[in-house]
């Protein structure tokens, strides 16, 4: 897959990560009423195993919200954080210390699901605006489990065409007023067919 991509294509994907996560950071900021920073997106062409290593290994436990994108651009998207950090996010939202995502509390879990829904939604809306393409977001789903087990769900469509995935990763961090580092990972995994559509729409010469 790597051979077909030139520098400019990766730069375009990086810009998508930038705009998407930027929009999501703004949404998060207004949701929890604090400033939020984001890292420069990383675009990697990786094997499936390498991708899971990025998040700490296949049996590392994370809380994840998973949505599917359909329309002109199809693919999968994850918002992933360590369970303890999911607790911090939801405590800021519902102001309740005793209810936690990591203990499986229903209210906290549904707050986390809604958080993921809003963040992935703003990410995908920015992607849609930037490319002028139609992108619809599926109903969100939440799980707290092994990274490998969850991320595979987003790799199925890709795996019929390739042994590698293009991972657009952005991290939200440095959330104002917190004494500890809080990191949220976005993973956008476009389906193989999506790339030609994205590049064409942005006037980048096709692959």
């Amino acid at each position, binding site marked *: 897959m790597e051979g077909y991509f030139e520098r400019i294509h990766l730069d375009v994907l990086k810009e998508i990560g930038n705009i998407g996560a930027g929009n999501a950071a703004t949404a998060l900021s207004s949701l929890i009423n604090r400033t939020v920073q984001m890292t420069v997106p990383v675009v990697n062409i990786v094997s499936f*195993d390498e991708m899971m290593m990025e998040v700490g290994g*296949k049996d590392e436990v994370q809380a994840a919200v998973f949505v599917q994108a359909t329309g002109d651009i199809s693919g999968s998207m994850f918002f992933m954080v360590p369970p303890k950090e999911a607790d911090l996010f939801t405590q800021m939202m519902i102001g309740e210390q005793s209810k936690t995502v990591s203990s499986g509390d229903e209210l906290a879990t549904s707050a986390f699901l809604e958080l993921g829904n809003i963040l992935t939604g703003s990410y995908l809306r920015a992607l849609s605006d930037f490319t002028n393409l139609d992108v619809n977001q599926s109903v969100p789903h939440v799980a707290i489990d092994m*990274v*490998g087990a969850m991320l595979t*769900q987003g790799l*199925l469509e890709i795996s019929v*065409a*390739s042994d590698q995935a293009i991972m657009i990763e952005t991290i939200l961090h440095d959330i104002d007023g917190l004494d500890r580092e809080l990191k949220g990972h976005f993973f956008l995994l476009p389906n193989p067919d999506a790339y030609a559509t994205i590049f064409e729409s942005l006037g980048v010469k096709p692959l």
Partner: protein
Amino acid sequence: MNQQVLEVVKVGIADFNIAKHPQTIMTAGLGSCVGLILYDNFSDIAGLIHVMLPDSTMARNKSFKEGKFADTGIKALIEQLEFKGVRKSSLKAKMAGGAQMFNVKSENEMMKIGFRNVEAVRKQLKQYNIPIVAEDVGGNRGRTVEFMIDESLLKIRTIQEGVTYI
């Protein structure tokens, strides 16, 4: 001191490998994927495959990792075991995985892939006349599995239930 350094053969996603006792063989983070162990009671060798998709007819390219699909992967693993001197007719199977990690109610067949993977593995094993001795499939939990060759035991770890053996 009678301490051995126990070596673990790690199998990646859509891949397969074999191990020889005292090695163990493991694969991590099975969701909808199926971890299938092929072993016998005579040799000290076992194979593990991390099946991702049911059938190689789904492949859109001619070149793909054999281990990705149940049909091509199980065939390749059996061949490798035979190459190491294991008799096909004595092979047995244990498997785990095939979960549905996200409770998606979708028309999209890809969302029910765990169930389809399990069915595809069963079909292949039936074709090769390999009995399934034990299994832990379905549900909505991720699994990490490790096979102890000398005891023919499959150790299964989940986040909620901890460790079980089949």
